[in-house]
């Protein structure tokens, strides 16, 4: 390749080959480096799961699930914690899903292009980045103090619902955006108005995507600890909230909404903060259950999204 007249050191055949070799070599080196970083990251996830199984799996049994917290680590359990988590999640889902879907539909299908829409959109983006503990301070200052609602299941549910609202709005918008424009035009062409189009065609088509967002949001809410600590939820709860179902008319009872409570991440934080090793085992057992729940939910959401993408193709 080298021309006799151009035999500067940069262009002679020898260093050109060396240059090429070095470039290919660094290419291969980077591929190995990328793979190493990847393996290291996944190893951390693996180590975390293995650590929880190792420390906590043997502690999980029927008694652990049906006992109240106790001063003796051996007889303590998470009954009040998992019941509390379940009830808080019911409130969170009941608020966040309709609100998030409605807001998503508005922003994607209805909103005119103007400064109000821009403002709402920037606002949602910003809310998604607000640290969760700030939502806790909002709940403490507004719900617990100003509105005097107390440290109840209802307040915790509302707080977590506001926290996961951006996740649901974004998921709704993305799944609406993926619906072909033809569907809207066909519906309008048949004389449907906007609401009929949304409720009859768009929402059913967007359902799997919205479901994915809802699951990811709920799994985030289940694991959240900081905002619930901030509202001052008690950590030693040795009783259950009143039952939502009763034998006499009207058969449902909403007193549980105003009951004090604890949830699984709080119980875990409480136990991990104590010096005794026995409580650390309890924390690991609680963490393992939490981890299993959130990983399963996320795994299901990922699988759902994967299937959805394959169907669209």
């Amino acid at each position, binding site marked *: 390749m080298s021309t006799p007249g151009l035999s500067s050191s940069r262009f002679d055949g020898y260093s050109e080959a060396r240059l090429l070799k070095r470039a290919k070599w660094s290419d291969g080196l980077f591929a190995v480096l990328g793979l190493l970083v*990847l393996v290291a990251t996944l190893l951390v996830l693996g180590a*975390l799961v293995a650590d929880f199984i190792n420390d906590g799996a043997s502690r999980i049994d029927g008694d652990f699930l049906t006992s109240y917290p106790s001063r003796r680590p051996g007889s303590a359990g998470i009954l009040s914690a998992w019941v509390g988590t379940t009830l808080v999640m019911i409130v969170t889902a009941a608020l966040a899903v309709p609100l998030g879907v409605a807001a998503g539909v508005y922003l994607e299908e209805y909103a005119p292009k103007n400064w109000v829409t821009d403002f709402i959109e920037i606002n949602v983006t910003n809310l998604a980045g607000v640290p969760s503990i700030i939502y806790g*301070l909002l709940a403490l200052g507004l719900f617990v103090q100003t509105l005097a609602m107390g440290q109840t299941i209802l307040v915790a549910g509302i707080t977590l619902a506001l926290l996961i*609202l951006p996740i649901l709005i974004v998921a709704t918008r993305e799944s609406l955006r993926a619906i072909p424009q033809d569907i809207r035009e066909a519906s309008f062409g048949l004389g449907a108005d906007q*609401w009929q189009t949304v409720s009859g065609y768009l929402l059913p088509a967007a359902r799997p995507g919205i479901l994915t967002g809802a699951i990811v949001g709920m*799994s985030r809410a289940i694991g*959240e600890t900081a905002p619930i600590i901030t509202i001052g939820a008690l950590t030693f709860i040795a009783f259950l909230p009143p039952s939502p179902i009763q034998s006499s008319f009207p058969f449902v009872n909403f007193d549980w909404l105003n009951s004090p409570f604890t949830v699984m991440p709080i119980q875990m934080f409480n136990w991990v903060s104590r010096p005794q090793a026995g409580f650390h085992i309890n924390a690991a057992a609680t*963490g393992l259950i*939490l981890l299993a729940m959130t*990983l399963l939910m996320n795994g299901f959401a990922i699988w759902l999204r994967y299937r959805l993408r394959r169907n669209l193709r």
Partner: protein
Amino acid sequence: MATDSTLTMSTPLTAVRLVPTDAFLRRRHLLDRTMRVVLFLAAAVSVLVTAGIIYVLVSESVKFFAQVSIWDFLTDTQWTPVFQDKHFGIMTLLSGTLMSTLIALAIAVPAGTILAIYLSEFARPRVREVIKPFLELIAGVPTVAFGYFALLFLTPIFQKFIPGLATFNLLVPGIVIGIMILPYIVSVSEDAMRAVPDSLREGAFALGFTRLQTGLRVVVPGAFSGITAAFLLGMSRAVGETMVVAVAAGQQAKIAGNPLEGAATITSYIVQLSMGDLPHDSIAYLTIFAAGLTLFLLTFAFNLLAFWLRRRYREAY
């Protein structure tokens, strides 16, 4: 649309309701109008949430700053709100937050950039499809579980190699936060890299660039604002991360100079104080809102800058 057995050719169409009646149309129109307003109100809730956050943080902080001067808040080097001799120097908590954030970024920025380049330029699509869900799973782990992992698994291991490492320290929580924000940084910066048009890559390959050269000299510069946005968003998360530091970094409020020792951060201080039962008119109670306002402003600045940068790169291609 009734199917009436007594239909004849002379039955007027409106009588069999093939054509919607005025009443039906009016009802439908009313529903459409109502739903438009209802949906708008739902979207407006998000604005109310922001307004609520700002209102609570500012109104409580105003009460705080009526008793403590802003100058003392920013320059005092001690933080002792519940002691007899009260000091309110936010720099102590801020130094803990910044130290853990810097350690997290020292892990997440190089690892995140390498992984993003690897996924967007090197990995085959099939490999990418398999790997990304696993990264998402890391993002789904509850933060309190990461706290347990930092305190009871990683710290004892690190103590074998680093002699001076305290049980509660900033180093290990910082590293764990780095791993936590890694999937997020990878996902945002990989998005930005994939938004770089393929024609630029093909041009580079045609000039004889290798994959790595294309990645470093074409794709990374092309996606620079998006990658910066990813770092800023990761930083904002690291600053706001609460449970890892609350569990594993200790509660001592002091100017954090040594990562091998523990120190309180803004977030872990708020948790620590919320656990106790303080009277709600005390100055110590008000400190968590002043600390919260500081945290909010910090993350807000990062988020806004990142939003602006991302919007810019989206417009570029």
